[in-house]
């Protein structure tokens, strides 16, 4: 039984073990400033994974997040001059609308989220290409600093990015555990039919989950855009699979109802450590991807709590 009791803690134990392994192999990994910088760089990915958690938590998936972020980098860059910090609102609104539409297509039109979000991602990509005129755009530095300079300073040595991430994590955690919406999410993820039979408006909950995923993706895109002070229709490429991996490795399986945003924070850190390990352990460039895959299988095999995957494993 003691093994059963340890199980839920596997994600962070895995993280700890990985950190120790890398650190032992190369002690410079433990340099606090370096670690802090590593962690703050993974923030956009983390925020995207945070949003994705909501989609996966109800048993779906959101494949539009990367294109959503692409679109937002373009929106932010194009409209910064007109609206200043107001582009944040536009970005969030765009994320909400596109996410909600994906959710609508999934719940009301019965298109599996795997396909509906993929398709909506294409729509967002088209919008990004159109808005950007298919060019890489960059922000005017003064305008960027005036509106979003606060995002990248440091207070008492703590990067503001990290603070933003923690605040968003806190919000997401609060949403998940302390609100009626979060409770409804859990009910939908663990037992949709029971949620229906309890009179919950399941469709609305699901649509909202996708909308939130869109909003977080938009925030991730915005931060990334400001960080890179520019935008184009491909800027956020490479986020999607990593964001999914971060959620899964954290121990939120695709079956829904298990895991949550804190798991995603751990999952993102695991991904970060694995990736940094490639650099720290000097893995040969041609071997990195294969090593990543193998470590991933091991990490997932360790972190998923099979006793909670009720029924058959598909």
């Amino acid at each position: 039984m003691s093994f059963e009791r340890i199980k839920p803690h596997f994600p962070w134990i895995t993280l700890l073990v990985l950190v120790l392994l890398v650190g032992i192999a190369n002690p410079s990994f433990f340099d606090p400033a370096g670690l802090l910088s590593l962690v703050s760089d993974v923030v956009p990915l983390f925020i995207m994974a945070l949003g994705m958690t909501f989609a996966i938590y109800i048993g779906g998936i959101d494949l539009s997040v990367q294109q959503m972020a692409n679109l937002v980098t373009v929106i932010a860059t194009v409209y910064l001059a007109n609206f200043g910090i107001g582009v944040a609102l536009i970005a969030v609104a765009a994320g909400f609308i596109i996410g909600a539409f994906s959710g609508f297509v999934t719940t009301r039109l019965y298109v599996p989220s795997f396909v509906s979000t993929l398709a909506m991602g294409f729509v967002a990509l088209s919008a990004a290409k159109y808005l950007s005129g298919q060019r890489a755009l960059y922000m005017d530095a003064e305008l960027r600093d005036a509106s979003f300079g606060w995002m990248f300073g440091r207070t008492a040595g703590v990067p503001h990015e990290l603070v933003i991430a923690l605040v968003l994590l806190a919000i997401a955690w609060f949403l998940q555990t302390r609100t009626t919406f979060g409770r409804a999410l859990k009910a939908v993820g663990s037992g949709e039919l029971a949620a229906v039979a309890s009179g919950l408006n399941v469709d609305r909950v699901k649509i909202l989950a996708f909308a939130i995923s869109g909003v977080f993706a938009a925030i991730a895109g915005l931060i990334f855009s400001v960080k890179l002070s520019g935008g184009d229709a491909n800027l956020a490429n490479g986020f999607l699979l990593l964001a999914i991996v971060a959620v899964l490795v954290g121990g939120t399986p695709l079956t829904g109802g298990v895991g949550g945003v804190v798991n995603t924070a751990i999952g993102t850190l695991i991904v970060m450590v694995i990736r940094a390990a490639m650099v720290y352990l000097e893995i040969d460039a041609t071997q990195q991807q294969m090593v990543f895959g193998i470590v991933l299988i091991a990490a997932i095999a360790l972190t998923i709590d099979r006793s909670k995957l009720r029924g058959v494993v598909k």
Partner: protein
Amino acid sequence: MTDITAQTAPRARWLTRERIIKWAPLLVLIVLVLLFPFFEWLEDFRESKEHLYLADSRFFSIRNAARIAIASTPALMVAIGVTFIIIMGSIDLSMEGTVSVCAVIFAFAFIGWGGTLTSWAWLAIPLALLVGAVLGFINGLVHVRLKIPSFMASLAMGFVGTGFALLLTGGDRIRVEDDLFRSLLTVRWFNFPIMCYVALAMLLIAWFIQSRTTLGRNFYAVGGGEELAHASGLNVSRVRIMGFTLAGIFFAMGALLAVGRIGIAETATGNNFMFISITAVVVGGTALWGGIGGVWNTLVGVLIVNVINNGMVVIGLPSYVQDGVLGLLVIAAVVLSTDRKTVSFVK
């Protein structure tokens, strides 16, 4: 008193809702095939040019059909492979890696063993299929034995595959120049290159597996009710692993045709197959929750996706709206082919 021993009454109406939904993907395909020539006609009409609908269409021509067929063949192979998995209610995302590895190993072996089909190099073909089978088998083992949901297991296996292909090539691309092998693309029978017939043959084999073999039928049993199938004495784990192995073989076939089409094997050979093949499967009417659909649906799905891609360029749609239009059309196609009355909820 109802007489239970009698045959269920034949459907009175020919055009039932179920039947329409069953054939919806094909209807969508036909509509698309007629729609794009309409835009061509409209364009010429606006410019007051002579244009007889369909007859003067460039899209609606044998030669373009061949082009769409060529573009479809590798994706069709990959999509057929994943169809079996989806019928079981699982999913396989490892195709990009598997295709790359098979393509690269095939090319190395082919070049190394003589470089032409008339030498022992033909052995590279069975070797590639074997490699595909082995990768699929490992994928299935990871999924079934480690009890990792197939989504995660195959996603990670896909990373491993792509990484392995990169390790093999070191980033180089290998040209396969043998004229005999390339006759897949260059030699045409009845306007269609040989690779189309190869793909057709593989489709028939897949159909045969699906409809005439125990394994194929067991996929449906697992997808229709895994626990019930288990209770009936079916070795579900074995069926699953076999399914992933079979999918690997079809991925390898896709790799061979992809190399046949471009003449180049590289780590990037597998790129873009993942989303296109799963989209095609779903658009064709095979449900992601398993049990329904089949390889003919997948053929229709692959054709729908490729017809859209080809047609959008042919009618001169600007490139930046093409992605969005593809997305919306895919949603529309899936909506039309989903029987909303039999589905309780979808995630």
